[in-house]
């Protein structure tokens, strides 16, 4: 059995030996690197990692350099989950055959992918991995847009957001469709653990990642990753945006055990109006025109309804 890493405080956590190096090409203020470090620092065990094509991948493994001091693979846009599932299958095979070079190790298999690579193009591959019960964790770095290619909408892009393929314009308020509820879809596979996390709530995140590593079977994690470039906010405000996302309940933090038992893991003491979250980002700027203000009201109603739903699910214990 692997030993659970004990973390006392943020300083100790942030100074853990880095297996994801700061030498990378991600934008200043990008939340991806914060999330990745939080996931990797949650364990001392060895790791087999993948990244699907996207910001994380193109910014961390540009030949002849690598930011990864752990086994890492990238194949394509859609198949990062399956890459890690293949490696996990090989681990099982070699373990059974007694051919592991370091049989005493307890490696963790984690795939990182953006929302485009998870909600859209990689959806089938992730579903397959979840259904087959691989001992892997899939982490979505959810910035709600195809950021690597310049800000096209994905099925994670929320209503009213201006993306380059759903731009706000003279007669349009931008994206018309609501965000896909990926955590629920993944939980519906009956997997042992799925959760939503945010990098500002690092203790909550580490607890969930560690729980994910402790269960037998596939784990799905959706991490909100504010994107300074596409959400259009100052790079120094990443954590502020993350705080707004969790404390407005736009990104509520919760977990679903065994596909059904839902627990809310963070209840803001002071719930902030959604309007403040929207106002902090250039991608929603046009919503503050008079003709679109009704959308801000609808946003608040939607977030309230979702929060009420999550609470009912939690109370019902089903």
């Amino acid at each position, binding site marked *: 059995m692997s030993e659970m890493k004990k973390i006392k405080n943020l300083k100790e956590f942030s100074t853990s030996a880095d297996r994801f190096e700061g030498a990378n090409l991600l934008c200043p203020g990008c939340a991806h690197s914060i999330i990745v470090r939080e996931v990797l620092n949650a364990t001392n065990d060895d790791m087999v990692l993948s990244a699907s094509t996207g910001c994380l991948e193109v910014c961390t493994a540009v030949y002849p350099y690598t930011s990864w001091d752990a*086994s890492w693979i990238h194949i394509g846009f859609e198949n990062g989950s399956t890459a890690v599932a293949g490696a996990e299958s090989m681990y099982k095979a070699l373990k059974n055959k007694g051919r*592991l070079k*370091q049989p005493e190790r307890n*490696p963790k298999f984690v795939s990182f992918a953006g929302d485009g690579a998870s909600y859209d193009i990689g959806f089938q*591959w992730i579903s397959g991995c979840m259904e087959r019960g691989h001992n892997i964790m899939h982490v979505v770095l959810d910035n709600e847009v195809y950021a690597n290619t310049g800000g096209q909408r994905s099925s994670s892009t929320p209503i009213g957001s201006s993306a380059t393929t759903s731009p706000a314009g003279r007669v349009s308020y931008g994206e018309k469709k609501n965000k896909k509820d990926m955590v629920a879809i993944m939980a519906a596979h009956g997997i042992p653990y799925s959760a939503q996390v945010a990098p500002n709530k690092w203790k909550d995140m580490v607890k969930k990642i560690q729980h994910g590593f402790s269960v037998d079977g596939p784990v799905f994690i959706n991490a909100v990753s504010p994107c300074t470039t596409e959400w259009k906010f100052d790079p120094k405000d990443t954590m502020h945006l993350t705080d707004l996302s969790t404390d407005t309940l736009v990104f509520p933090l919760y977990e679903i055990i065994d596909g059904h038992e839902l627990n809310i893991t963070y209840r803001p003491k002071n719930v902030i109006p959604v309007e403040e979250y929207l106002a902090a980002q250039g991608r929603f700027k046009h919503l503050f025109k008079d003709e679109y203000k009704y959308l801000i009201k609808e946003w608040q109603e939607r977030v309230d309804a979702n929060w009420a739903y999550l609470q009912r699910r939690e109370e019902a214990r089903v």
Partner: protein
Amino acid sequence: MAFDKMELRDIEVWDGNFAAAQAMRQCQIDVVAAYPITPSTPIVEGYAKFLADGYVEGEFVMVESEHAAMSGCIGAAAAGGRVATATSSQGFALMVETLYQASGMRLPIVLNVVNRALAAPLNVNGDHSDMYLGRDSGWIQFDAYCPQDAYDLNFIAFKVSEDHDVRLPCMVHQDGFLTSHTAQGVHTLTDDQGYGFVGEFKPMNDMLDFEHPVTHGVQTEEDWHFEHKARQHNDLMTKVMPKIQAAFDDFEKLSGRKYNIVEKYDMDDADVCVVCMGTSVETAREVATEMRAQGIKAGVVGIRVIRPFPFFEIREALKDIKAIAALDRSSPGGTVGMLFNEIAGSLYNSDSKALLSGYVYGLGGRDLTKANLVALFKELQANVDAGKVTTPLQQFIGVRGPKLAYL
């Protein structure tokens, strides 16, 4: 976990699919990630049954698509172990993206391709469209003509692919239904002989070696991409053929069965010959023998290794031939057939004065009859007699309606 060995008779009656499944079992593959598709499905089913009966000790992952099958194979191969799968046609087409990724990442994987036509129109029968689709993917491609070849070439494929000087994935092709579903006598290796030939898998750059973390599948742009691709091509052009020849030699010592990079039949004194692949090779050999009784000195060249293409061996095999027919079982889509092109490329700038003509045949499983080949050999002889190609350079044979001919 343990597994049982299987007692085989010296000669078993197997179709090409089961022969390939048996070879996979004997090679003791660590991970098979697969998805079923006609006509290769029985390979995957056969392997699954071996697993269910305790004859296999690896992981068998039934994924949700062929793209995922090859993706899983890539992840497993990068982790460090023996990996194989099988597919056909549309499944092969769906895999194409990952085929390039597998070879570019220099991962040894064996892919059994049971050749089948590509839609549209949808068709489950054998032609070489899928095989041709893979020809620029940087894989090594072997071609089996019968179930025996499908069995033997799997062992050779693992041996070559996993060689540390090669580290390139390898396809073993066989004709859909004609080979895959036609039972014939297959001379077997014992389990110990088969596994002994391929040997224990020796990992390289394996992700499961945690003392040596490795980054697979990096980004390169205009600064390094060309060098990576050029090195891969260089290894295909310079390192692979000697390894294949060595594997053929070792296999002959083990089994008594001799494979050649190009398979020559009655070529020593031939005036005319056809160059073809798959089951057509056996048909052409039979007809060539019959043509000799009619006074036409006919020979046959079968391509055994499609990639890397055997330019020098083809040039040597065809150097004294007066008229050559290149038979392509794939619609060339607006140009000459692949074999026509490769043979022309092999002979150009050589001393050969051969007359070369191309034939497209057998699409979607249409039979290539002996009568087709008799007529073809007669056309070649007519070319020899006239001292020029008397037909259009490209003809379709066996297709209904008015004769189709181009160029």
